[in-house]
């Protein structure tokens, strides 16, 4: 066995740090929490205001508009209908509102950071290991500080989801910006583009497919996290899964699980098709 005398623990220090943080900045966290909650509630309200058939029609039309495939669009639109048939419609909307909130926040933070990462080398050097850490850290670990700082429920779920889902947006934005062909950039500069014009007119539009791939990945990761965050009391499909595990109710777990999969398929297809539309035309 590893000698006990060599053991050094950082756990007390981490605990103390979090405790001090809460003690010192409780009002700050409270206001952040309130802000996120109101954002979340707005999203939720909008989602609830749309009738159930609106979703099905919306998925069908969006899918048809972006892919022009009729059969695929019908199948895709049938998936949310199935979720409704399992009686999980409300849960699915609950999950969706957390996902949308987290993804929107991830984009608001991630896009500018991604641009910064592509433009300033030092930012990239510092950020890369942090992003690696954010992605490889077991996602359960985020739940503890999120819960301690923001209590139980949906707000810490959004934050944990945000941390987990943020890296792909940042990474793929930076990647897309750096992949712009050199001759195109050089030509833009030769015609008098400023640094900002170069980003706005050339690099961002050309990076769009890569950025949207990042949005897609972020959404998928957020979806995975939504199930996990049910452990800190976020309602939604994850809660159903958790409940079924506790009661060893395989059938119920299957319904909830497959609903998560359906949700994932719908979001994945829609965002991927959108990404394709942004690619520069091949002919």
């Amino acid at each position, binding site marked *: 066995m590893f000698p006990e005398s060599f053991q050094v623990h950082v756990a007390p220090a981490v605990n103390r740090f979090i405790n001090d943080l809460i003690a010192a900045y409780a009002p700050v966290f409270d206001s952040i929490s309130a802000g996120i909650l109101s954002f979340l509630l707005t999203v939720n309200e909008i989602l609830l205001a749309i009738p159930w058939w609106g979703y099905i029609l919306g998925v069908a039309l969006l899918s048809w508009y972006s892919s022009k495939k009729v059969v695929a669009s019908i199948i895709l639109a049938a998936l949310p209908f199935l979720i409704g048939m399992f009686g999980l419609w409300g849960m699915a909307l609950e999950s969706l509102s957390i996902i949308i909130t987290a993804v929107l926040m991830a984009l608001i933070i991630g896009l500018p950071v991604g641009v910064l990462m592509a433009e300033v080398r030092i930012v990239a050097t510092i950020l890369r290991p942090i992003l690696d850490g954010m992605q490889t850290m077991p996602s359960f670990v985020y739940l503890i500080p999120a819960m301690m700082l923001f209590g139980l429920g949906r707000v810490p779920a959004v934050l944990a989801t945000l941390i987990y889902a943020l890296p792909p947006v940042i990474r793929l934005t930076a990647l897309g910006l750096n992949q712009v062909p050199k001759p*195109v950039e*050089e030509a*833009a500069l030769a015609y008098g583009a400023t640094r900002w014009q170069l980003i706005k007119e050339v690099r961002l539009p050309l990076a769009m497919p890569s950025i949207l791939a990042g949005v897609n990945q972020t959404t998928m990761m957020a979806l995975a996290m939504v199930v996990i965050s049910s452990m800190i009391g976020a309602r939604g499909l994850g809660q159903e899964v958790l409940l079924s595990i506790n009661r060893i109710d395989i059938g119920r777990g299957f319904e909830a699980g497959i609903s998560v999969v359906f949700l994932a398929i719908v979001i994945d297809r829609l965002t991927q098709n959108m990404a394709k539309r942004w690619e520069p035309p091949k002919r």
Partner: protein
Amino acid sequence: METPSEAIVIRDLWKIYSRKKDLRISSSDVENEERVEELDKGEDAVVAMKNVSLSVNHGETFIIMGLSGSGKSTLIRCLIRLVEPTSGEIVVNGENVVAMRKRELVDFRREKIAMVFQHYGLLPHRTVLDNVCFGLKLRGEEKEARRAKAVEALEQVGLKGWEKYYPASLSGGMRQRVGIARALVMDPSILLMDEPFSGLDPLIRRELQDEMIRLQKEMHKTIFFVTHDLSEALRMGDRMAIMKKGEIVQVGSPDEVIANPADEYVAKFVQDEREQLQRAERALTKEQMGKEAGVHVS
């Protein structure tokens, strides 16, 4: 100030690329001959351009010729500081380009000079029309005005009706026509062309050369033209300079260069052309003699 007959004056221009991050090369390195030699031999730096001095007159087509790696692309990029020269002076229409600040440089690039690239450098996500508009947009011109100008420029290069297409659906020759239209629409006094026709097949290349010659007859721009193709240089150029390993080895009219190559390098360059000339001459004389003989028989 410069005499007005000269559009571009280049004096003692140097470019030394550093290959190591912490190796900063400045004009003081250039002044020291031993230091330059040391850098040239070492692995840490590349001396791309040595002591280049040139002057280009208004309205002439000036050709820079050399093999790849001879520094000609570096030279043309220095003129609008896409590459920062290590030391030396560049004066364009009386303005010192090297001394320009960021903002001045942007204005200079927008107003005075336009460039055509070997790899076109078109924006794949914009239509042909929007590509031609691009420079005008950067300059801040009104949408209607720039569209009208772009349509006209496209007509000039023979691409009327292609406005709504994307670059990906055009052939290489057509893409370069867009590249030329994009430059012409800026109405610059100086046109930089960096091997614009090198990537095209011979027939299209010739077609575009003719097109440029025709346009130049109407426009009388100062054209700074880089190429590695001697026949292109001979067709297009009023005067030419030949570069070798970053230095200019000869400047003169195409005829002078062919007749009196300055050294072996230039001689090798023009050898093909001379051989072809001789061969064509032989063939023509044969034909002539054949005809004459034919006349006798009949």
